[in-house]
């Protein structure tokens, strides 16, 4: 059992095939997954649902997932952004949010989500997830498992 088992995760990802992949990865980590592929549906879920974590694809067609991020900030739900463009592609107000570099890979996804669960709730100032893309700035003693993707 890992820390992630049984956690409810909101997955926001707008491409059918890519959403399947990310959903399977989260299911393999033992999470319960709710998928939203459109901004309005994601907002409705973020507003009414109860989640331990969220994974937000930044680009949703011609829109961005920032309004969902705002709701998650308000509710104190830890989340990360998934993007193929890295941190520099994010708007300034969201640069403190942890970033999962696409394409989705199971090990970094697990690592970041675990970090999110152990950390403080996220804020715009970044006291939660921290400014590092993978949380590897924390000390070795704090790390619960081997980090193999960014040593």
């Amino acid at each position: 059992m890992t820390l992630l088992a049984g956690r409810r995760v909101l997955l926001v990802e707008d491409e059918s095939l890519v959403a399947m992949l990310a959903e399977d990865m989260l299911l393999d980590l033992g999470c319960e997954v709710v998928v939203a592929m459109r901004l309005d549906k994601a907002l409705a879920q973020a507003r009414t649902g109860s989640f331990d974590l969220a994974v937000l694809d930044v680009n949703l067609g011609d829109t961005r997932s920032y309004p969902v991020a705002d709701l998650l900030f308000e509710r104190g739900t830890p989340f990360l952004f998934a993007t193929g463009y890295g941190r520099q592609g994010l708007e300034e107000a969201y640069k403190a949010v942890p970033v999962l570099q696409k394409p989705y890979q199971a090990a970094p996804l697990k690592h970041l989500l675990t970090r999110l669960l152990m950390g403080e709730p996220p804020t715009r100032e970044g006291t939660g997830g921290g400014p590092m893309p993978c949380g590897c700035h924390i000390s070795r003693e704090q790390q619960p498992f081997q980090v193999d993707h960014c040593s």
Partner: protein
Amino acid sequence: MPNSRQPLQSTAEASTPLVSLRRGAGQLFETERRLNAVLNNASVSIFLMDDRQHCIYMNRAAEQLTGWTLEEVLARDCPLHDIVHHTYPDGRPFPLHECAIDRAFPENNQERGEEVFVHRDGHFYPVGFTASPIRDDAANIIGTIIEVRDISEEKAAAERQRLLINELNHRVKNTLATVQSIAAQTFRGPPDPAARGVFDARMAALSTAHNVLVEDNWESASLRSVIERALAPHLLAEVDLNRFQLQGPDARLHPKVAVTLAMALHELMTNAAKYGALAVPDGQVILTWSLHDLDDGRQQLNLRWEECGGPPVVTPTRKGFGSRLIERQLPMEFDGSAEITYAPAGVICELQIPLTTLGWVGQESIEGRQAL
């Protein structure tokens, strides 16, 4: 500066006969006529400046570029900079002493660069310039000649290219992510020698969908082409009309709709070939579709796939990639609905897909610039 030099004249009388110094009258007239013909037919703008940075001559191209006539510029009796270059694009005043073109004169060197000029009507336009000193017989600098080109189109082309490369990068990444997902779905579970063939066929379907998109610059895809290519047995073949009945109007599909629909049709076809109507010689697939207007101005595609003449249908015990893609992902991606019915006489699949508005981020600015 030495007192002995002869400054260029900056009066209207002196400027019209541009090269009328030190020549015999007849020869002079002929030379002037030739030079004026050259200058006024040149497409590059040419300005002749005196030692005070006043313009004392400009050719026809320069008049068109700036919106000012030579007479008007002479009448202003001020540095040319204050007429065509007085404001930065951000609205701040642009004083003469900050001007790179102006420096060509005192610094005595050929100065090339790019600046943004202000047209008489107030709009800004980017220019490339070359400024060179003019010397008298004693090599004293008495003025400047400036060549100027409007580089709006070059700038717009560079911006178009930047936007297109960004968009291409976005699409390549999306395609790679799609391939990654198809691989993960296909090779999930225990090793299966047949999985490799299934994967190759899915790659071919994805590739074919992209071919249809390329036909229209990846802006949209013809619905009918997407259907026909997805149902063709391979790239070089036509749809077998003995096996498929196709009926419905054409429409332009957003690339995302085109790719997902093509993959959905591929999965239906693969299933039909393995278990359904296409597994027996006389089986058929009837594919009908129609378009309906929605309240929000978009259209909705209603598509029905119906198999007949195949072996009796057995409801599958577990749902695979195809049914997950069609029944779950496709409705979520497009806010539509999808249903697969395992009727005994043949599989029926009904899709309702609200069609995404065409266009992509950056496209408007690209097309706006093309209109220049």
